[in-house]
């Protein structure tokens, strides 16, 4: 606990949140939003195709989108860590934060399963299994939960 308190009360946090510059907190926050757009945007495209509600692209052709998913994730892991450090003591006891992190972990995991079970195999759209479709739908839903939780953290905690 005191470790997270010391992170939140560190000189870095003071500088990061207290600076008048737009290059500290505002820019990291904006990069976090850009990463989200890339990560969740690319996930949307993949999963909506697995669910067959976005046209008939052979799934294998969408493999490249996973590169964008990982780039977006990397941006958000990095910026997310910085944002966490500056609010560490508050976040570590915040249930909404755990909902957000938990949904991201499972959404990504399901995304990887969708890749292995449907996208990589390059089956015709008729061969997409019900299980793959359920995983895609669940992953989509969890990304939305993560977004809502991320937004709500700003409101539900003091």
């Amino acid at each position, binding site marked *: 606990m005191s470790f997270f308190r010391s992170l939140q009360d560190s000189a870095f946090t003071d500088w990061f949140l207290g600076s008048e510059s737009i290059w500290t907190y*505002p820019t990291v926050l904006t990069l976090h939003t850009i990463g989200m*757009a*890339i990560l969740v*945007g690319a996930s949307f495209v993949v999963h*909506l195709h697995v669910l067959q509600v976005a046209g008939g*692209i052979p799934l294998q*052709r969408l493999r490249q989108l996973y590169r964008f998913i990982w780039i977006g994730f990397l941006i958000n892991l990095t910026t997310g860590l910085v944002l966490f450090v500056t609010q560490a003591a508050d976040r570590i006891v915040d249930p909404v934060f755990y909902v957000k992190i938990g949904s991201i972990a499972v959404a990504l995991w399901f995304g990887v399963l969708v890749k292995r079970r449907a996208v990589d195999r390059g089956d015709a759209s008729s061969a997409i299994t019900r299980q793959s479709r359920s995983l895609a739908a669940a992953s989509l839903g969890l990304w939305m939960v993560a977004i*809502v939780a991320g937004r709500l953290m700003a409101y539900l905690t003091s």
Partner: protein
Amino acid sequence: MHDFALWVESTRISKALFDITWLWPLCESLHFIGLCMLIGGAGFLDLRLLGLFRGLPLRDVKAMMPWAIGGFVVNATTGMLFLIMQPHLYLTSGVWWWKLTFIVIAGLNAAFFETRLAEPALALDPNADMPRGLKITGAVSLFSWFAVLYCGRMLPYLGTGN
């Protein structure tokens, strides 16, 4: 603009909406989800126009557009609600007017693509190099949507006028 903002804020509808405590965070969440749909769908087409995903027929990529338009509608609606609830945050902010400008640029670019470029583009061999005109449209679209995102997210930090 300032007077207009004050007038909007004095209307009964503005007050009534702003008094609903959960409406603002709900709209924010929807605005973020809509953003992902819009940038996901439109960005995919933009990247294809830039020459990525070679071999993928443009027609198949364009099939994603209803989702991008859906995302835009969600964001235009929630954005309008923000505007009605707290007009001074936006109307007097230079950054917000930049955001609006980039939305107009992205919209005009999309309309130009749809009316002038799409038909011959759909007839192209999916394995051929993208003509320069299509690459430019894709780049303009991608840049504009991310500029819209940037202006929106930075709005509270980049000189608001209130």
